């Protein structure tokens, strides 16, 4: 096992985790910059594999991508180090923030900031839906699946996981 390479991997993914603001896709662009461009540990072609695999496997895209990059570069030990370090910084910060947030949740200043943050989150998710929609929706079949999913989870309280798997089967029939 190459300890110096592992520690480099650790530092890289510590950085990627600490600066990926706003979800998995930010993590992907950071991985591309750090691992492909700056370190040249992976080729652009290999990174395309990372992109594809992390999006078709279940779980958070940022975690899938980090684990796979670590695995590609250094096998099992690389996978462990990359996954651990990409989570580490935010894990520590969340614990600290959660501690103080739960203590001061009813204070005026925290309540006031939340007054802005809560609707902001909804606005942000709407923009993600919009951008993803522009990329994804090509014809009536896509719209049909979206409608089926929304109606089944909202109206008939179908579990979202069931809805996604049913859509996978529907994909085989429709496309």
């Amino acid at each position, binding site marked *: 096992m190459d300890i110096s390479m592992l520690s480099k991997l650790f530092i890289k993914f510590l950085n990627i985790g600490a600066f990926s603001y706003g979800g998995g896709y930010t993590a992907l662009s950071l991985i591309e910059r750090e691992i492909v461009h700056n370190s040249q540990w992976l080729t652009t072609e290999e990174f395309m594999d990372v992109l594809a695999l992390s999006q078709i496997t279940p779980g958070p895209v940022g975690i899938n991508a980090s684990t796979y990059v670590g695995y590609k570069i250094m096998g099992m030990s690389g996978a462990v180090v990359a*996954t651990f370090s990409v989570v580490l910084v935010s894990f520590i910060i969340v614990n600290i923030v959660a501690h103080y947030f739960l203590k001061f949740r009813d204070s005026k200043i925290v309540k006031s900031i939340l007054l802005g943050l809560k609707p902001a989150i909804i606005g942000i998710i709407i923009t993600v839906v919009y951008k993803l929609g522009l990329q994804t929706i090509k014809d009536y079949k896509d719209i049909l699946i979206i409608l089926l999913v929304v109606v089944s989870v909202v109206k008939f309280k179908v579990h979202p*996981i069931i809805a996604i798997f049913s859509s996978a089967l529907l994909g085989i029939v429709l496309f």
Partner: protein
Amino acid sequence: MKDIIKLFFTFFKIGAFTIGGGYAMVPVIQKEVVDNAKLITEDEFLDYIAVAQSIPGIIAVNVSTFIGYKLYGFIGAFFICFAVVLPSFVIIVLLANVIMLYRNSIYLIKIFSGVRPAVIGIMMFSVYKLFKPLKKTKFSFFIIILNIVFIIGLNIHPIISLIVSGIIGGVYGHIYVK
């Protein structure tokens, strides 16, 4: 301890079966923890999402860690974070090579043609579920529209938009809320 183990399996299941990334996982976590297990309220969940999104890192992991901390302190945070990350790790390490072998198969392509729009539907469901506990004031609608205009219209990074919203909320609350 029994409760932590139960929650561990809930988050393991969410991590193992939710395709579509963090924003698809949020409504699944909400369904399991708020609707089914009733461990936290809708309003608390919206608070935690807002805070988790303001912290760097992977949103689904941050929310899960936050919920773990709220329910069982540091031990809870550790186990729930572990539970949500573990399935990804196992699947990638064990199946990466097999999946990559079949990545151009016609079935896999068809499956993902179905999954991709489904994920959009699930994210719409997420907007619906997060919107429900929100106080429907003019100020809330103003902030929602402000974020959409910032991010889509002006191409501002979501995190800047989020910070600006927090500051506006802080000032607004300071002046108007008793």
